[in-house]
Structure formats: C-alpha cells, structure tokens
C-alpha cells in the first residue's frame, strides 16, 4: 500500500517551525517510514505532485498572492494542519495590523511600487478551513511528531490546551509571579513548551498563544499590582501571538488606557 503523502508549505514566516521537523533527527527516518515526504522544499528538491493526505502549513497570509495560493493548497490537501504562531495567529508580523503599511513600504523600500502587500498579517484559518492547529513559536518538535503519529494512527492529536502553569508545577518549578514578583503570561498561555522560561526564573512570553479559557484581564490586573503600567501590558500581549483574539482585545484595551493616561 502506498504511504500517505505529506506536504509542507511556507507562507510569511521565519522557517523555524519547518526546521523543527528536520530537528527531530533520529525520528526523521521513522516519519519517512510512515509517510511519503512528497513536497518539502526545505528538506528535498524532489517534489511529488498533489493531492496530499497531510499538509503542514507554516506562516501567515500577508500578500494577495498568498491569499490565493492557500486556497489551491487547501484544494490539494485532505488534512491541513497549521503549525506555529504565524500560521495560527498571524505571528510577530501581525504587529503591522496596528500600523500604517504604506508608511512601512515607503520607509523601507526604494521602489514600493514594485510590491504587493496586504494591510494585515492573518492566520491561515481566516482564509481556509483548518483541520488542526499546532501552536508555538516555534512549535515543539515532539508535538509535531505527535501530530504525524495521530494522523497515521487515525486519532486526534493529544495536545493539551490548559495553561503553562500545569507544566511548571509538573516539572517542579516554583511560580515566578508568586515567588519573586516576576510578571508572567503563563496563567493565560497554552502549555506546550514544557514551561521553559519559568525554569530559568523568567516570566512566560506567551509563545503558545491563549490557553483554553484565558482570563487576560485578571492577569493584567495582577501585573499592574506588580508595577507594570498599561503600556507595559500592551507590549506584553503584543508578542508572537498579538493578533490572537484574547490577547488582541486585552492589548487594545490597555492601549486605550495608556493613551488616556499619557503613558
């Protein structure tokens, strides 16, 4: 029986999530033994034409061309899984959604008239139906293996949607907010990284986006008690997952307050 065909596509992104696939090292041969890596330019120049059984999409939609291209990829894909903060939330480049794109074009490029770009950076799900989203900036490589294994075994990927706090406690890391007053996005951020930053006494940066039921306003209030002002809150929530709705609403709210208070 022919193996299911795997394709990997890139949109506006840094390539880090795709590289996580190559970074699984020993397991790469196992992956290649259960799926046919048919279209993965980062790994091989050999490209087998679609349709594909499992398509991994990295990156966000930032150009009219990409907004068209994703529809063709969707048509070619039985299962489409988005990987990383760019594909699932618009990525760090979604910061442009709050700014004037024309100004960027005129400032950065000598001949902006040659460019075609959209006003926004948006996640793939805003354009086509997505079967599963794998969060993270970058994604966790073992979670990628889990997604492929789940697909091959015909089950739903086992990816938690609870907070980073659960991972901190499981690994025995004392809470950085409670223990030394370090502002941390962990309570509103989805697990998946293994609670890396708090284990180095740093607060969470929210790389995996909002958890399943994020109470961002209450966490923001707790940050304010630790001395963070509205501007600081805007900066914190406008990171890699700035355009994810719960983070976006909270940063907009505190931006309005920051402006009102002249911060």
């Amino acid at each position: 029986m022919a193996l299911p065909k795997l394709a990997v596509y890139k949109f506006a992104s840094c390539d880090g999530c795709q590289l996580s696939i190559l970074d699984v090292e020993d397991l790469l041969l196992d992956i290649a033994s259960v799926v046919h890596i048919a279209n993965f330019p980062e790994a091989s120049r050999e490209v087998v034409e679609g349709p594909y059984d499992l398509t991994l999409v990295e990156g966000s939609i930032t150009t009219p061309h990409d907004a068209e291209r994703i529809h063709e990829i969707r048509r070619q894909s039985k299962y489409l899984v988005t990987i990383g903060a760019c594909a699932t939330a618009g990525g760090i480049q979604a910061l442009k959604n709050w700014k004037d794109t024309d100004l960027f074009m005129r400032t950065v490029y000598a001949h902006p008239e040659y460019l075609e770009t959209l006003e926004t950076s948006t996640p793939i799900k805003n354009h086509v139906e997505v079967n599963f989203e794998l969060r993270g900036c970058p994604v966790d490589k073992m979670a990628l293996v889990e997604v492929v294994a789940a697909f091959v075994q015909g089950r739903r990927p086992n990816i938690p949607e609870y907070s980073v706090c659960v991972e901190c406690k499981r690994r025995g890391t004392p809470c950085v907010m409670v223990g030394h007053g370090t502002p941390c996005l962990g309570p509103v951020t989805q697990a998946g990284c293994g609670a890396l930053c708090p284990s180095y006494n740093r607060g969470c940066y929210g790389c995996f986006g909002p958890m399943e039921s994020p109470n961002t306003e209450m966490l923001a209030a707790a940050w304010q008690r630790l001395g963070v002002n509205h501007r600081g809150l805007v900066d914190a929530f406008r990171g890699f997952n700035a355009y994810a709705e719960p983070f976006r609403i909270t940063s907009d709210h505190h931006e309005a307050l920051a402006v009102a208070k002249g911060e």
Partner: protein
Amino acid sequence: MSEMYVSGQSGVGRLIQALAERGHRVIGPIVRNEALVYDEIKGVEDLPKGWTDLQEPGRYRLEQRGDEKLFGFVVGPTSWKQYLNPPETVLWSGVISPEGFVTDPAPEPPKYAFFGVRPCEVAALGVLDKVYSTSNGLPSMAGYTAIREQAFIVAVNCVEPGGNCFCVSMDTGPTAEAGYDIAITEIVHNGNMRYLIEAGTPAGAEVLGDMGNLEEPSEAEIEARDFFLTEAAANMGKTLEVDDLPELLKGNARNPRWESIADRCLACANCTMVCPTCFCNTVDDNLSLDGTHATRTRKWDSCFTLGFSYMHGLPMREGVGARYRQWITHKLATWVDQFDEMGCVGCGRCITWCPVGIDITHEAGAIRRADLRDTPIGIGGFA
C-alpha cells in the same frame, strides 16, 4: 507519648545519615528558584539554615531570619505527593514483536525517607492513604502503595505558623499526633538550637536506638517545646469555619458568589497542583510512529482544565465558576461523603500560590455570609 530525646544540629545530621545508611533516599526542604522545595538531601548542610518564608495570598518571599534555625519556615510549592504520585508516571510500556506482546520491566519502587514533613502534611499523607486504599484497584491509581509502604516519615512540628496556615481549623496541627516514624520539634533554648526528637513507630524507635549519643531533655526544654507549640496553635494566619461546611457548600450550588470568583479566577490550575491532597490524574496512551511500542502514562490533571470534564463532545463544566465550585465543594464537602473526612489539611498552599491570591478560607466564609439555602435560588441544581 513515647520517650523523648534531645540533640543539637549534629543530631539532625546523624539522623539523615542513619536513614541514608538504611537505604533510604532522603528528601527534604532545600532552596531552589527562590523558594523552599522538596528534593534530595545528603546531609544537614543541605537544609535551608536561617531561611524563612513570608506568605500572603498570591505572594511568597524567602528571607534570611538572622538565626540558625533549620526549619524556620512552613511549606513551599512542592508537596510529598510528587514522590508518591509523581507528576508523570509510566504505568506500563511494551512492544509488539514476532514473539507477541512483551511489556517492559517495571522499575523498582524507590525507598524514600521524607524529612521535614509538617503536621498538616502528615495529615495529607493520611488523606491520600485513604483515597488510594479505596481506589488502588483502579489501574490508573496503581503504584502509590508500593512507594508509600517503604517511605520513612520524619515529621517536624511547627512552632511558627505561616501567614496562610489554618491547620488548627482542620485539626491537623501544629503538632503531629500520629502518622510519623520520628517527630522533631526545633526550639531555641538558652540561646542554643535544640531538637526534641521522639519516635512514633517501632521503626522510628529502632533508628533512634541505632543513632546513639542522644541526650535526655531537661524539664525546661520539654516545657519550652510545649510552650512554643501551644503558642503556634494560637497564631494561625487564617481560620476556616468548618461547622456545617459540607451542607453549606452543597446547598449553595447556585450562589452568585461563584460568578464573582469566576471573574477573578485564572483557571490556571495552580491551586490543585500545589495541593498536597489533590490526586486527580489523566492517562495518556502513546504509540510510536511505527506502531510497535506503546506507553501508557499517568499525569497530574486538574478539575480547572476543560479537558477534565470533557465527555461526549462537550466539557461539563465550561464556566470557570462551575470549575471553582467543583473544586472547593469536593475538597470541603463531597470528600466527606467519599472518604469520611475533608480533603483539606489547612496548609495554605492554594492561597499562597494562586497568582491572583484567591483564598479558600475567604471564599468559604463569603458563601457562609451569603448562605442561600433558605431561599428558592439555593435549592440544588447546577448553574
């Protein structure tokens, strides 16, 4: 009361040595990441001499005491459950081979000595023992008893309660009455660090007998110990009114207070993770990519996650208010129906380690002040 002995700090060190020589991995409090956590200790020098912990709702700070106390603090974010019911345990793993299905050999259960178990934590071990003795037939609960039976318990009585302690309300402290092999009370007497040591079991007496060089305490030292422990009982940071509490909580399922808690609660699950008696877990099955190697892993779970109450397509407790109500009602009310006692021992961890400082004693008090049992809204049901 069994015979009491006394020593200086060298005696504490000899006790750690004696337990190590008997093949125990000794676990005790150490300073790590700006908190007191439980981890392996090799000698008395690993204990957090001169440290204390200041605790308020949602706030914890380590500070130097300016004295030589080895146990001048209360409890930190870790608890003994991490050794008895580890955060992640492989229940079994195995491979499909041409010879059939072969399970991997299970590791030997570790032989621990828990050193510095506070009276509320001794009580928590008793709570867990009850939970696991009634549930150990369940495959997902396996493994606890094998570790528990070999564990040697060195309790340390509390002469200085913390800001969020309420063991007196729960009748679990500040003096350990039973459930330990050896109990220690640390006092400063005439300017000297003195450790009053007693055995609670024949195993404890045997270890003390082997140690030798233990003195008899003076009358004054015993009086000082009793004085400090009586003082401690009068200086609890918090109080929880337990009279009628199970009926109160069960009868207030529709109290609007739950929604006020939902506004504040982050549903981050920290309270349940730090609780020394919260035992809920989930079981993950993992199959290797080639389908030949299977692993079943038990992991700590929490009633604050949506996945916890997910069944036939929906989470049963979608609202955060319903999740908090489930937690506190189980801990303080329906636990009694299940196990004939409350699941709370008054250690205060859930209060301290809540990032927004939600206080179980305060919330139970708020429900009591706004008791709706005699109004139509208070009758049963689930919001």
